[in-house]
């Protein structure tokens, strides 16, 4: 299908540029590390407390880091003529959304791959037994985050004061994702004796599907000139 092929072209281009310049990735990792450290300093000696709130802290780190990369999603298009360049090509404009979405997901997951083990070390929580559960939450949460984020980033790219508009619009939309991700993570880290985490994973999954459909459907309207 040509939408996927063109989306893939965009993913390839973005990841290639990112691999060469590392501008987003480095900033994200640094920022995430900063967040983790500050929390460690604040809650420091009380390791029991740290372990209890580890789930929430982790997602604070991921959320802020994610927003950082989101605002750059379309920014590297700016020097090359803006989104206009991509719109001048034939084909379904949804390919742009899918391409940018996949790029964001991959990038954020890569940062999480570093962030989560780092959190484990700093918060003295043994993460290995929960690796599978954590991986699933990460993936579902990151997808949900990127779905809405990529969409709103496109909407606000031409807006004045977009740096304030993006988080403002994102916040209410991310409540279900963050609730689900934080609760699932915390439950998983606690061992989840009653299997409650599955409920949250289902919430995340449902959110992902619903918003994927909505965003992909409305995207061409957001992109119109």
């Amino acid at each position, binding site marked *: 299908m040509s939408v996927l092929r063109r989306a893939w072209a965009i993913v390839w281009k973005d990841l*290639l540029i990112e691999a060469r310049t590392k501008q987003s990735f480095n900033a994200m990792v640094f920022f995430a590390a900063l967040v983790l450290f500050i929390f460690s300093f604040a809650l420091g000696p009380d390791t029991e407390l740290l372990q209890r709130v580890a789930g929430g802290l982790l997602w604070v780190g991921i959320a802020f880091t994610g927003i950082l990369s989101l605002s750059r999603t379309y920014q590297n298009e700016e020097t090359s003529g803006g989104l206009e360049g991509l*719109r001048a090509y*034939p084909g379904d404009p949804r390919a742009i959304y899918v391409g940018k979405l996949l790029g964001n997901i991959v990038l954020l997951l890569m940062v999480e791959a570093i962030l989560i083990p780092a959190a484990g070390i700093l918060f003295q929580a043994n993460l290995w037994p929960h690796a599978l559960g954590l991986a699933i939450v990460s993936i579902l949460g990151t997808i949900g985050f990127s779905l809405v984020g990529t969409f709103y980033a496109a909407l606000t790219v031409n807006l004045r004061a977009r740096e304030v508009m993006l988080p403002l619009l994102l916040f209410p939309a991310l409540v279900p994702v963050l609730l689900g991700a934080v609760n699932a993570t915390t439950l998983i880290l606690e061992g989840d004796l009653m299997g409650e985490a599955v409920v949250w994973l289902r919430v995340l999954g449902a959110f992902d599907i619903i918003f994927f459909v909505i965003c992909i459907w409305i995207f061409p309207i957001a992109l119109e000139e």
Partner: protein
Amino acid sequence: MCLVGPNGAGKTTLLKLVATLLRPSGGDAHVMGHSLRNDPDEIRMRTGLLTVRGFLYDDLSAAENLHFTMRMAGLRPHRDVIARALERIGLAEVADNRMRTFSTGMRKRLALGQLLVRPIEVALLDEPYSGLDAQGMRLVDEVVSEFKAAGTTVLLASHQDGEAVREAEQTGILRKGHLEILPESETLSRHLSVGGPAGAPEVE
């Protein structure tokens, strides 16, 4: 066809309208029989746009940029097509260098090259001479002649003089959004017909 006119007359806007990057606020126009309002995708498939800044990525190489262009146009990127295009625009030796290292003239050539790797029926050139030296300008003229020979319609906007400008079969003067076509030749462009209020799509 060549468009001339002072700055701010709307030449770029007109080209972008034909490229379907802008939506007409009133009326409609047809490019190769397809309506701007209803069939923009058909038009995009057959149209190539050369802008002043070009749609190029600094951190990709010349070859990679063309590779991307072909992919986005829905084509399978062939190395020979890319190589030939790079040859034609004189960038074959720097094919694998990042665009960041290119001069303005080289970028302009690469942007021109983007039009060569796709089969287009209408070429829209916005200030193609800007940033180019004498050799570059000759290249533009040659490419325009090749387009014409192949039957591709060329719509060229320029406020610089050049051979392609002088050799245009038809010239139009654009002033503050109004287009006046000079009656210098009887041959109307086969592929471009403009209809709607005031003879030109209303610009916002």
